[in-house]
């Protein structure tokens, strides 16, 4: 039988029976974890092959949350697609908005004013807090510490309230627009941000104290599922997981965008790449994010929150639309035709809370992308699971899944 025939012989009942027979009488047992299992953080299915309690082989099955976002994008104007980017990495939705807007702005060749950039930086870092808090909280929960999860969720709700004040929705933020933002920050919002930052910092320290040196937690994570530097690179792993493996890589430093070069922060790097390092990296990143937010709040520049030169891209202001014919027509054009973008391609990557998120926009002119490619960091780390899980015990699976902190909306898109 040729190789192709072998692959396609799955419909062959005899072959299937033989495989089943092998499974029943073989030395290993197959265990399905997921797709709907609380420990898999979404609809990930793992097909594990076990020898006793040890995992011999792991086969992640993805695609249960595939919604065809890339195809959806081809049927919408650039601004209409922004609500859909909320649903990519839905743990820190506002960061996807920002990354997407930056990608399209790169294609359009426009910049945004400093105020807009600073607001976006705060949004990105708040998204990082949102993401890391659920990552750390669920990690604790998966290791058996439910309390930490509750404390972190309490503070996440506070951040969500900030989002609600900022853009009108807690979760589906839809905040950025090509060339600017949906609206300016409301009065007093920055003070609320600072207050929440204090709370977040306190909770982070508290949970750090509760778990980092806790013997049960320590014993469950140290040395579990290490990902070596070389493997991390060859699987394209990025973000906190790569940093835990000792790769000093952070797009905010390597390819600064939004003026990140003007902020002071450190990039935490782990040494062993095991589950414990992944915890340490995220705890430290929360501290650094709070630091960045404080800097951004202190030097929040005045001015506009959108690019007023990009009249064919950013929607004119409402009062103008109501009172002037020219702006009214522009409003019609931007709504029906979409923002006017040149022919060309643009690639943009940003440091999402979970790693490198990238958009590749191909435009044939007009207001609708011809093709939009989305790269999600969770996909890379899930593809590394077959490498890191074998050798672990079954009860390590929740810990490892919690430690790599992925989200299926980002992986499946």
């Amino acid at each position, binding site marked *: 039988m040729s190789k192709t025939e072998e692959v396609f012989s799955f419909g062959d009942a005899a072959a299937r029976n033989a495989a089943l027979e092998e499974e029943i009488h073989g030395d290993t047992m197959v265990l399905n974890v997921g797709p709907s299992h609380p420990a898999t953080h979404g609809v990930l299915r793992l097909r594990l092959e076990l020898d006793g309690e040890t995992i011999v082989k792991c086969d992640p099955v993805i695609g249960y949350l595939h919604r065809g976002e890339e195809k959806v994008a081809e049927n919408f104007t650039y601004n209409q697609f922004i609500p859909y980017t909320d649903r990519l990495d839905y743990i820190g939705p506002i960061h996807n908005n920002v990354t997407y807007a930056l990608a399209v702005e790169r294609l359009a060749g426009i910049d945004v004013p400093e105020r807009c950039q600073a607001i976006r930086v705060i949004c990105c870092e708040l998204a990082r807090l949102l993401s890391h808090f659920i990552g750390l909280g669920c990690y604790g929960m998966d290791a058996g510490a439910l309390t930490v999860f509750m404390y972190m969720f309490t503070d996440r709700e506070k951040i969500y309230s900030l989002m609600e004040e900022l853009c009108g929705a807690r979760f589906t933020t839809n905040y950025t627009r090509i060339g600017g933002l949906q609206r300016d920050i*409301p009065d007093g919002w920055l003070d609320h941000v600072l207050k929440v930052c204090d709370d977040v910092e306190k909770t982070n320290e508290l949970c750090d104290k509760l778990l980092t040196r806790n013997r049960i937690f320590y014993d469950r994570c140290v040395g579990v599922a290490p990902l070596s530097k070389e493997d991390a690179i060859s699987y394209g792993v990025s973000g906190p997981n790569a940093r835990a493996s000792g790769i000093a890589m952070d797009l905010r430093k390597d390819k600064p965008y939004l003026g990140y070069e003007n902020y002071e922060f450190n990039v935490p790097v782990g040494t062993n790449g095991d589950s414990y390092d992944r915890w340490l990296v995220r705890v430290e990143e929360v501290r650094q994010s709070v630091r960045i937010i404080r800097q951004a709040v202190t030097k929040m520049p005045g001015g506009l929150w959108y690019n007023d030169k990009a009249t064919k891209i950013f929607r004119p202001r409402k009062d103008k639309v*109501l*009172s002037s014919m020219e702006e009214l027509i522009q409003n019609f054009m931007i709504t029906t035709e979409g923002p006017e973008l040149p022919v060309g391609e643009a690639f943009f990557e940003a440091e999402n809370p979970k790693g490198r998120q990238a958009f590749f926009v191909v435009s044939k002119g007009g207001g609708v992308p011809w093709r939009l490619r989305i790269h999600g960091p969770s996909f890379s780390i899930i593809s590394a699971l077959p490498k890191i899980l074998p050798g672990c015990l079954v009860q390590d699976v929740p810990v490892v899944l919690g430690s790599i902190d992925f989200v299926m909306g980002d992986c499946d898109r």
Partner: protein
Amino acid sequence: MATKILERKPLTLAERTYLPQIAAGLWVTFRKMFGRRVTLEYPEQKPPIPRGYRGVPTLVKDPNGREKCVSCQLCEFVCPPKAIRITPGEIPADSATAHVEKAPKDFELNMLRCIYCGLCEEACPERAIVLQNVYSLNAATREEVVLHKDKLYELGGTLPDKIMKWDKKKAAADKAAGGHH
């Protein structure tokens, strides 16, 4: 690049006994027990809703009671999940607002589809559709949450309008017509 290598110290002997952790953990629990409550008794206690909240999209009237929507169908066009369906209608010539010419005959908003994105409000050139504070829209059947014009106006009510564009237009037109006599 400013990197920070995370050091990992092995647990000390005291930490290995697990006793300090228990004491510290219990202390945290004890403190939290007398801390401020963070939850709400929801239906009785309502969360505060900030300004500019994106709740259910509603249709609004201007202070004179004129329905502001001129059924330009921009919101229908822009709505990503296609939740809006508008049947345009004419304003009868003998009406006081005949110069506005058009108003929706029916305005169907399918709240089963709406994702509360607010793009309709942004696109509307008349500020006629506004996302307001209603966040809990419940019904026993699917038909009940497909909102129609009457319900949308009931939810929306009247909003102040600083510009009153159509009144201005009418005044200008009247003046021009008066000038010709």
